């Protein structure tokens, strides 16, 4: 269990580096699929079976297929690097390092590794999720269906020949 977590964590970070530093969008998309799948394994280790399956089906399946299809359709090649902003070039890396240090520092200060014992394992199967979803979260669920309807119509309208 513990080893599997660290293997998946290292894999996720390496693949995320691939997403960020690959020059070709297709390679970035394939690396992102590796990130999503290793995160799904970590969700399984955390006892979230339903979300692990959803992650693989919806994210690694549906959404990434959409991405790969658009990359293919638009024939996206290696991106050309431009050098427009001097400030971004010299200030970007230190600022991002500062952001990482800040997040990790807050996490370490708030949750020292020793004294956070996990709660008892939850039942996070589809039945428990469904109970919670259709009892306490019915209104957000319905609003979500409306959101998806609007998104479908928006996608169809935007992708039409004449905008």
């Amino acid at each position, binding site marked *: 269990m513990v080893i599997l*977590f660290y293997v998946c*964590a290292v894999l*996720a*970070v390496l693949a*995320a580096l691939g997403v*960020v530093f690959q020059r070709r*969008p297709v390679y*970035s*998309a394939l690396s*992102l699929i590796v*990130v*999503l799948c290793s*995160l799904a394994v*970590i*969700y399984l280790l*955390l006892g*979230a079976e*339903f*979300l692990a399956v*959803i*992650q693989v089906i*919806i*994210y690694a399946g549906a*959404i990434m297929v*959409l*991405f790969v299809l*658009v990359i293919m359709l*638009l024939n*996206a090649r290696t*991106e*050309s690097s*431009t050098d*427009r902003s001097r400030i971004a070039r010299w200030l*970007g890396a230190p600022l*991002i390092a500062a*952001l*990482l240090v800040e*997040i990790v520092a807050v*996490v370490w200060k708030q949750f*020292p*590794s*020793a004294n*956070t014992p*996990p*709660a*008892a394992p*939850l039942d*996070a199967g589809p039945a428990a999720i469904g109970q*919670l*979803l259709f009892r*306490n*979260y019915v209104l957000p669920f319905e609003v*979500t269906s409306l959101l*998806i309807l609007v*998104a*479908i119509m*928006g*996608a169809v309208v*935007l992708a039409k020949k004449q*905008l």
Partner: protein
Amino acid sequence: MIPLSHYLALSAILFVLGVVGFVFRRNVITIFMCIELMLNAVNLAFIAFSRYLGNLEGQMFVFFVIVVAAAEAAVGLAIIIALYRTRETLSIDELDSMKM
């Protein structure tokens, strides 16, 4: 048992990598994928907290985040297709018609 802070550290690293890609990359599609990476980092934090606090509501949030990400991907990629039709480019530097 793995301490909660390790999950949160992994989440932080993935989020920051997403920010790096968002800031440094020039291709619109890659930038979009970096946004997905950031959303996934947040999802990991939600699920880790849900497990360690013994509360299922964190997983509900992840469920809704995934739904919103799906809607966002559909609309965003449609916008990218429309942009490519009119401008014939995917570089964020060329897509600056709203710049003052």
